[in-house]
């Protein structure tokens, strides 16, 4: 059984927070408030989720899973849409993308009997897929906006030669996808060598056999890898259209401060 950590020992984590805090203070990074606030907020969120999961895990799967997965997708969409400020339909695009990806990943897991339909398995696994997809979509959104800005002249040149929006955006789509996928491919290459993935670490500490933990990790790593790729592709292929109008003209994107 898992070794318990006393609340008293947890308190000493404050020492770890004091390090960046004193750095920020010493070098006047102006991040003191941010560090303190993020730490408090993060801790509170985790405890809240912990208790919530306790409740959900006791519910019937058919009720608990949709509630929690739905909430995760909603929160992830609300968070990722900030990266797409100035673009229309970003929120529904992300929401639909995450729903599709989560649905297909979950279906594959269940069909091939990798996990069983229990809140305690579906929720943490889905959380990782949704969280990583959210980050990937945010990155792709930021990237595509900056690529469109940077390549304005080339896009005009392509359009003026008779290219359709899809054809003109080809260079940008390529660059955005490559930029979104490279860190993933690299991450997959060194997995387990440089650092043990968080989930595996957690399982081993929780008393699960390493080989068992690796099997779960393999499922989750590969699932994350493909859903992250899909997220970037989906969001890029949906969003590039919003930079053009029906007359194959570039439309100016309103500048919004990224959060």
């Amino acid at each position, binding site marked *: 059984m898992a070794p318990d950590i006393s609340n008293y020992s947890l308190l000493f984590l404050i020492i770890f927070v004091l390090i960046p805090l004193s750095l920020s203070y010493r070098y006047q990074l102006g991040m003191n408030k941010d560090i303190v606030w993020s730490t408090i907020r993060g801790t509170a969120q985790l405890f809240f989720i912990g208790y919530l999961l306790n409740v959900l895990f006791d519910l019937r799967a058919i009720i608990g899973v949709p509630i929690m997965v739905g909430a995760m997708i909603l929160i992830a969409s609300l968070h990722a849409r900030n990266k797409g400020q100035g673009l229309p339909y970003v929120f529904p695009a992300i929401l639909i993308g995450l729903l599709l990806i989560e649905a297909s990943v979950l279906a594959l897991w269940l069909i091939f009997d990798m996990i069983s339909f229990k809140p305690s398995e579906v929720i943490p696994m889905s959380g990782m897929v949704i969280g990583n997809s959210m980050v990937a979509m945010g990155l792709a959104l930021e990237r595509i906006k900056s690529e469109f800005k940077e390549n304005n*002249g*080339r896009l*005009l*040149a*392509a*359009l*003026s*030669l*008779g*290219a*359709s929006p899809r*054809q003109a955006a080809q*260079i940008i789509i390529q660059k955005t996808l490559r930029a979104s996928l490279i860190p993933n491919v690299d991450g997959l290459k060194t997995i387990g060598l440089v650092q043990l993935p968080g989930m595996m670490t957690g399982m081993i500490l929780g008393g699960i056999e390493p080989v068992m933990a690796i099997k779960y990790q393999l499922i989750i790593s590969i699932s994350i890898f493909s859903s992250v790729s899909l997220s970037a592709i989906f969001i890029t292929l949906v969003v590039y259209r919003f930079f053009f109008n029906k*007359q*194959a*003209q*570039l439309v100016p994107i309103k500048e919004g401060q990224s959060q």
Partner: protein
Amino acid sequence: MNNEVFVFSGVSTPQLSNIEFKINKGEKVVLFGPSGAGKSSLLFLFNRLKDPTEGRIHYRDKPITDYHVASLRKQVGLVMQSHHLFPGTVYDNLQYGPSLFESWDEGQASELLEMVALPQTILHKNVNQLSGGEKQRISFARTLANRPDVLLLDEPTSALDERTTEEIEDLLKMLGKEKNLTMIMVTHDLSQAKRLGDRGMFMSEGKLLVDQPVEEIFTSPENETLKNFLNR
């Protein structure tokens, strides 16, 4: 049979106000005026990279909006102020336009390079190995590859030395004469305007102030702002 290629009536955009003119087939129009006058903005209207917020534009015998955008842009070629080449080789750039219409043939490449006075050896070079002047000429050749009927040129020789400028001017004269191309060219070089244009348009602050035969512009400018501009 109507000879008008472009008719602008009461055309306004955020940058331009109430532009009116007619351009006939084969005419060579030079467009000049101070920086920020709206010259580039005006060129963008001819091939619908932008649409006016007010007024109407006719191309040949129909409203410009009646044409399929891509085929309009193929017929009305634009050479932009900066070269904006695509990443890749010279070849990639030259075949870009024709490939969109599945009309590229391999023989075209050497013909195009010859037109803009570049050596054949350049064809498979990466574009970021080219000089500024070479890039400008590739961008010009890239537009010519579509075999346009109307040519919009935004300072096409600004990055070229005297000798190359002369070669490009010869090419423009040849295209103008032999293919009876209609040309609308922005230039800040007034002697070039005289050499290439038969009609001069002077713009300032988004307005078309003067539209007269080129020789008259220099002998008897009919506008105070233009006079000041010429005497600066």
